[in-house]
């Protein structure tokens, strides 16, 4: 069998590998949201410049921050700002946030909720739903159905942006026990296949076919949809920056990578995956 006869040569080459790997490996870890353009950028650099780049998405944004802090990676990926607590945990690390694009977190609902006419929620309504005081959609203008809230895992950038909007500080978020979802696709899949479902999801993933992004009602009662315009002007409250994180200034391979992502080609990748490139943001 072909595969088994490869084993011995592979083992031997594994043992000999240290002899020929020259450049250092660039390791990147963090948010699954940021991962999409970053992974593709890594592929391009691997193919064109023969760079050795490893990308992983263990633990989401928090995982990216702690991996960078623990010195396990050179670049972290995060879809949220670093908090004071994050910086305090790694006092010796000088975190540098490199802005590479912008995304928004939307509350997406399943088809039956959307088609009942519900298009927007206020902050108070979302808070009531999250904390379990409101259990049925009809209480907020939707169909008569139990609310199935699929909560993003705490630690995910998406979740932190959500609670930041609701409570101002992730630490102030109350303890809730809701079914959990992990990655963006699990979130989308579960909302799409369940009636009366809602979850936090990167707005670029709301395809308008199986899951639908709600608008958020401002204090004045205006429904603000997560459009490119609203996200760029920060009118939509749950917009969030996409960061590459480094410890101090990026050097060597890390610098090559960061420069690439900030270049035209890299920014095109950011746009390709549904996010806003830097040039689209109006400060």
């Amino acid at each position, binding site marked *: 069998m072909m*595969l088994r006869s*490869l*084993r011995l040569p*592979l083992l031997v*080459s594994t043992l000999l*590998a240290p002899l020929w790997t020259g450049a250092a490996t660039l*390791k990147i870890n963090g948010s699954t949201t940021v991962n999409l353009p970053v992974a593709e950028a890594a592929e391009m650099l691997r193919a064109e410049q023969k760079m050795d780049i*490893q990308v992983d998405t263990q633990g989401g944004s928090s995982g990216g921050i702690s991996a960078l802090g623990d010195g396990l990676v050179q670049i972290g990926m995060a879809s949220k700002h670093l908090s004071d607590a994050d910086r305090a945990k790694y006092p010796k690390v000088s975190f540098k946030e490199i802005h590479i694009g912008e995304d928004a977190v939307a509350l997406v609902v399943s088809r039956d909720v959307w088609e009942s006419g519900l298009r927007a929620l206020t902050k108070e309504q979302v808070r009531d739903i999250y904390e379990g005081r409101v259990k049925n959609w009809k209480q907020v203008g939707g169909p008569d159905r139990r609310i199935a809230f699929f909560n993003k895992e705490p630690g995910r950038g998406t979740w932190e942006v959500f609670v930041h909007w609701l409570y101002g500080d992730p630490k102030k978020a109350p303890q809730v026990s809701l079914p959990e979802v992990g990655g963006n*696709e*699990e979130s989308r899949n579960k909302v799409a296949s369940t009636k009366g479902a809602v979850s936090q999801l990167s707005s670029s993933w709301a395809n308008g076919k199986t899951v639908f992004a709600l608008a958020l009602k401002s204090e004045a009662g205006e429904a603000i949809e997560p459009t490119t315009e609203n996200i760029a002007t920060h009118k939509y409250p749950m917009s969030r920056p996409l960061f590459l994180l480094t410890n101090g200034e990026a050097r060597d391979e890390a610098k090559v990578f960061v420069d690439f992502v900030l270049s035209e080609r890299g920014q095109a990748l950011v746009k390709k995956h549904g996010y806003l490139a830097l040039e689209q943001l109006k400060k």
Partner: protein
Amino acid sequence: MRKWKNNVFVAVTGACALLSCGVLLLIVGAIFFRGLPAISWNFFTEQIRLVGAAGGIFYNLVGTLILISTALVVCTPVALGVGLLCGVYGRHSRWRERFMVLLHLLNGVPSILFGILGLIVFVKFFGWGKSWLSGGILLGAMILPTVTIALIERIESLPAKYLEAAAGLGLNTSQIIWSVIVPQSLNGLITGSLLGLARAAGETAPIMFTATIFAGATLPHGIKESPVLSLPYHIFVLAQDSFDPSVGEKLWGTALVMVGMVVLLSLIALPMRLRIHEEAYHP
């Protein structure tokens, strides 16, 4: 009346059998038909691109092969040691009973606990980060009972006349072991190994914290910070993080390759295993 009861019973148990076979065939069929479109020469020789949406699974195969080879190398001496202890040195003593208990206990330990143990020992204490060696050692420990018990069964079913003849020729115990027992029981060792490797190839939990990442690794260099890609972890991540149609086919293809690998390894072991089995139960 009694005949009627008999027929009902046959029907009921027959229905169970039909249900079992039906379910199992359905599963294999689903994997086979959904995965087949993805299988091509390219699938095996290219690496992952676009977060799983394009390319093949070459380095995942390589990674899994590295892991199970290491597991085999780690496991064989211990299996041999315990096998000789139970089958030769401690043949009629309480040691055999004690070690059988030990092996059954080890066999019953959930695979996730091997992963947690690896996290404590290899990642925390040794500071290896994610390493192929940790994965190999943990998998080796996990399959130890399978390999050892197959070996012991084989040793114990060796005809006494071989050993008496050897003793009669003046060979001492060590010589008898290496010139008679080990060669004769080799197929037990091989059978057990194949079955163990089949199991190890499909395990995710022991390696997901300690040895494998999703993308970017090719061949490991050194021991520390040298993860590998793997087939089961690939499926695990994609099952949560991507249901794009473009990825779906590749996902099933990977599942098919994995199941194929397991089936192949088990099939090779089957004739020997059935023979040992029959000899043990119906001498």
